């Protein structure tokens, strides 16, 4: 029995580590290459750097106007994600509990909207909000946040919709008898029970918004409002990219997300523990 168990768990660990090697190697490559010169990077990206050169990092921080850019990215990502999560959870709750005809149609439209090729919206977006309403010049960051909420709602509602059904309706009925109105029932009873999926949705949204290039590149026209991915384009060349700066820049962009995910992990686990007490 124990021998069998040991063999089984060794096997599991073996698979886990092989997968680990496959999935993490680009990240390791990024790390070692962030210390190398262009020449070293393109001749042999797999070797360790001949000397550990931190100069590229400081160069990147200066050239990217790092503090401002980082702050913009952070602000846009956090506010957008927060609002997406709240609004989507509310909408999904309403749709699941009140499956009226209108709600079903709206849900269908939302799901369908996710497959609209973004390229077909680029010109309409900048024409309407730039040329006609002048909002791109006036309020680039709030406008971008509005766009993120608009584009992000669909997937988030879709995901909440699926998981909402696993919330037992009896708990809500009890709350109602205690005198809670719908809003109270939602925020105090239902929303906390959605924690695992909420954290997941938040992570997926942060990931997307933080790394997104196309949408901000349309809306942000001024260096003072650039986000990290938009600012990074200063390291792209027509024929050859400036890898020695591009790679450290990517690393600096990616690290906050990794840290956030590790923190989010704990939340998920706490969420599960709370759920199991019920």
């Amino acid at each position, binding site marked *: 029995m124990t021998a069998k168990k040991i063999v089984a768990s060794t096997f599991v660990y073996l698979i886990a580590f092989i997968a680990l090697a496959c999935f993490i190697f680009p990240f390791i490559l990024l790390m070692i290459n962030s210390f190398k010169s*262009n020449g070293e990077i393109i*001749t042999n990206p797999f070797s360790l750097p001949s000397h550990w050169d931190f100069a590229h990092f400081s160069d990147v921080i200066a050239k990217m106007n790092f503090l401002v850019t980082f702050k913009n990215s952070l602000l846009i990502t956090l506010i957008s994600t*927060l609002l997406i999560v709240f609004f989507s959870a509310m909408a999904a709750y309403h749709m699941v509990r009140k499956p009226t005809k209108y709600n079903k149609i709206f849900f269908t439209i939302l799901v369908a909207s996710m497959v609209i090729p973004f390229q077909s919206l680029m010109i309409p977006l900048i024409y309407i909000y730039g040329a006609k309403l*002048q909002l791109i010049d006036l*309020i680039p960051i709030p406008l971008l946040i509005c766009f993120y909420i608009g584009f992000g709602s669909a997937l988030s509602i879709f995901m909440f919709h699926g998981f909402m059904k696993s919330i037992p309706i009896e708990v809500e009925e009890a709350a109602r008898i205690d005198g809670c109105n719908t809003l109270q029932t939602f*925020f*105090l009873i239902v929303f906390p029970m959605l924690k695992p999926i909420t954290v997941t949705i938040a992570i997926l949204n942060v990931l997307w918004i933080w790394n997104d290039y196309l949408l901000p590149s349309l809306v942000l026209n001024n260096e003072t409002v650039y986000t990290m991915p938009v600012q990074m384009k200063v390291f792209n*060349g027509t024929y050859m990219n400036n890898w020695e700066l591009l790679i450290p820049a990517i690393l600096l962009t990616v690290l906050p997300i990794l840290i956030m995910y590790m923190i989010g992990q704990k939340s998920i686990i706490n969420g599960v523990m709370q759920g199991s007490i019920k």
Partner: protein
Amino acid sequence: MVNFKALLKKSTLVGAAAALTMSLAACSGKTSGNAASSDSPVNIIVTNGKGEIDAQFKQAAKDFMKANPNIHVDVKSSAVGDTLNMYDKLTASGKTVTIAMFDPYSAVHKYKDVGMDLSNEKWNAETTYALKDANGKVIGFPFAVEGMGLVYNQKVVEKATGGKFDPFSVNTQDKLKALLDKIKASGVQYPVSYQTEFWSVGNHYSSLFLDQDSDPNVILDKLKAGKMDLTKNAVWNGYYDTLNLLTSKTYNKYGDRPLGQYYDAAHVAVGKGDSAILFNGDWAFDSLKAVAGDNFGFMPVPVDNNPDNPLNNKIAVGPTQVLVINKKATKAQQDAAKKFLNWLVYNQAGQDFIVNKAQIISAFKNNPNKVTNPLGVAISNAIAQNKTMPFSTNYINPSDWSTIIGPEVQKYIGKQESRKDLAKFLESYYKSHQE
């Protein structure tokens, strides 16, 4: 469950209120407006299509503004791989680009209604590369002169030939073959690293045959009229004979599978001296210098065995980016733009920016500076010795050639189609694309 209700009410209110305020703030908050006040300084937007000189260009704009405090220059650089180019994006979002950087073909075709007449500008006297539209009016300020040909690693080639190498001595196909054999004999297994990007095999290499007439448009007009039988055209065939040689298994590093994403790898190989020759333009130095400080130069691409054929003795050189002043800009903006162009030509700081800072070969004779990168030097020398022919790529539609014709040339290189098929394809393309 006792305090539950009280807690309920409080936190609901707070939560809802927070959400509401935030949503309001998101959509009505005003950030520091960057819209220009219309009275005092003149604002001009300049688009820069050469992303790699973004920093230098912005510095130049600053220097210019210092000297001209009543003009504000806003440089917007394109990023490589952007779906929507900077000019279209800004124009669609309601802005007026005062100075736009275009490739010459787009400037006189796709954007023919943009450029104002610059025929009377003083700088026309200093250059032969000014871009004219169909009516002979100057509309394009030549911003960058570039050239293309066979790039070689001087050290490797001279080791093989023994002694000083004159790139213009290789002026027939046979001499090229002899050189390749010599390099091979000197211990370099594959003298050529042929990379096959669409724009390189299509736009660049496959347009060279247009230079068989001193005016490339003559050949193009024949093609459009359907009066050109490419299979019988010696020059067109000659270039593909040379291409066969360059991509053959004997000489090409990637001969076994000539297609693939070899751009970086090819430049590393030639830069390090593992290989000796590739086909590209002077921008190749960006990639080459990453691996070596060796010296590099250009050879013409030989098309036949007649040493007196001008095509065998010249390198394709021309303006690859031009600046155009927008007709739709205000008079004040246009005047400011003209001032900026003059500054690039006549002011010391402007001249310094173009050549020393951005390492661009100036199209203007009065610019005393010389680029330092060896491929740029080779182009400058060819210009000085009058060994140049028109940059044939400027006469074809660059986007069609990279998405429609480039893949066909790749098929030819990959032996997926015959030369006859390629000829037919090109002929039918020009019959259906008359502009």
